[in-house]
């Protein structure tokens, strides 16, 4: 929706307005915690992306003679009982944890936004039925079902994405539906109808750009939830399976030997917690920036 205006009609430059997005960006930039969170996340993402090239040791490189040693110059975060480098393992584990976080959130986003938008735009009986279904599903013990699925169909990474995504879409659908519904009653949407815009154009130009803010915010806050869920399952031994690894799995190994080798618990724990912190701070900051009314104190 950028408008090109030549300045020929005026003899000087036309001042550009500040869009709500630009406003939000300014507010976000002022939020120091969020910016630190964002910086940290970018760092973690780049490291995880480049892991195969920059990891100091091979993923499965064992050194049984070495055994578990505390952090040292050769092994910054120490080694595990097989003498494997913890930094390397945490970097590889992060790849899986982040991947699950992003993919499962995308699944949730895709289902939730589509479902919510349809319900919100259709309104009436269709909406009532669709949202009632969400209410019912919401009342179900999903954690139990995910465990059940993992037991029945085996521990499969793809299934894990789908199962977690399938849980998290419910809230997304509710948010989007609420947004679309309240936006639909806005007079500017009525004005668009009275101008004769087609439903598709109304959705694209008037509804989606205005509903985007809360979706972005909620997406940011869903990623840590999903990562927690994955870590939770992996910890129980029902999620990621060796030889794959994730932070949850590393924590679970760490717990077994924490009395003798506490660094095996502390470092993966720190990796998970700091990343969750960063995501939550960013999410809170985005909410303050994109929806100043909702979080006004």
């Amino acid at each position, binding site marked *: 929706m950028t408008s090109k205006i030549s300045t020929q009609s005026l003899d000087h430059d036309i001042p550009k307005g500040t869009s709500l997005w630009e406003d939000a960006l300014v507010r976000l930039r002022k939020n120091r915690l969020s910016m630190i969170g964002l910086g940290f996340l970018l760092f973690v993402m780049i490291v995880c992306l480049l892991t195969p090239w920059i990891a100091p040791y091979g993923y499965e490189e064992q050194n049984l003679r070495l055994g578990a040693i505390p952090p040292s110059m050769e092994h910054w975060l120490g080694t595990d009982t097989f003498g494997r480098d913890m930094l390397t393992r945490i970097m590889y584990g992060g790849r899986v944890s982040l991947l699950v976080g992003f993919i499962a959130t995308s699944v949730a986003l895709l289902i939730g936004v589509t479902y919510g938008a349809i319900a919100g735009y259709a309104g009436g009986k269709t909406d009532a039925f669709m949202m009632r279904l969400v209410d*019912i599903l*919401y*009342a*179900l*013990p999903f*954690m*139990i*079902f995910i*465990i*059940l*699925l*993992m*037991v*029945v*169909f*085996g521990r499969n990474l793809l299934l894990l994405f789908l199962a977690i995504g399938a849980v998290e879409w419910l809230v997304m659908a509710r948010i989007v539906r609420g947004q679309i519904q309240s936006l639909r009653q806005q007079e500017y949407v009525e004005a668009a109808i009275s101008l004769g815009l087609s439903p598709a154009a109304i959705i694209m130009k008037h509804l989606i750009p205005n509903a985007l803010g809360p979706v972005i915010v909620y997406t940011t806050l869903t990623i*840590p939830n999903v990562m*927690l869920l994955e*870590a*939770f399952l992996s*910890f*129980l*031994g*029902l999620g990621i399976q060796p030889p794959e690894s994730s932070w*949850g799995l590393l*924590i*679970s190994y*760490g*717990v077994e030997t*924490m*009395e003798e080798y*506490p660094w095996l*618990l502390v470092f993966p*724990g720190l990796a*998970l*917690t700091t990343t*969750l*912190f960063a995501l*939550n*701070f960013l999410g809170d900051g985005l909410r303050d920036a994109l929806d100043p009314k909702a*979080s*006004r*104190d």
Partner: protein
Amino acid sequence: MWRFIGLRSLQAIPVILAVITVTFFLVRAAPGGPFSSEKAVSPQVQAALEAQYRLDQPPLQQYVSYLTDLVQGNMGPSFYYPGRSVDELILQGLPITAELGLYALLIAVIIGSFAGVIAALKPNTMQDYVPMSLAMVGICMPSFLLGPVLVLVFGIMLDWLPVSGWGDSYGDKILPSITLGAMYAAYIARLSRSGMLEVMSQDYLRTARAKGLPESVVILKHALRGGLLPVISYLGPAFAALLSGSFVVETIFQIPGLGRFYVQAAFNRDYTMILGTTVFLSTLIVVFNLLSDIAAAWVNPRLRYQFKK
């Protein structure tokens, strides 16, 4: 009000039925029979076992007889522990999990709403930042990490509290309850803070102040009711989350509760046990959601009024 309760209860029945059905057929669809992992047995023994667990019947008939048994409170024998019934195992684990859940819920609600209200009274001061930072730590520190860390610090390094068991030694209930309750205390703190902030900006609080009421009455009588409403609605989902949280906590602290049984059943492929616990826990969760809905409606006079008519 009774109409509301009646209506919501009626809605719960198909949900529970759906859960039973889906779980039943999911478990039946699992690849490999329950005994396939064990050594090869003679066909006669296999047949006898299958007859005992009704695996020789067609699926639909199995389903119907399972339902009939269920209504009579019989969830069948365990696959893994020969000679013990699922009912027996559930009844054994339930009181322990219920006690753990109750303590955790109390910790979550009391500490959480107190912290949230305190923070909302003076937003953007230290009184707000300190509890809310702690809440953030609570949210980012999952129970499977918090538990071991607590064990390491208070159990092993300081040797103040026992690190396993339930009711076996003095004080062994403290760490598991805190571990399980912490994250929900954090959620509730955030919920009650935003709920209170919302209410604090309402005109009717200005009215209360304009009457000359002291601030304590303004908060306790006029603000708290509306401000804590979101917490009440959250109790249902919180209960469900607590139950799944108990899987981890009971595993970490080796507590013989329902959660640990469930995880073990999942590992042992004890299908009747999985089925039984899933059905049982789901019903419990649905019932709790119902109760929390009713409580929320009870606190909200508008809803209460609507259904009185």
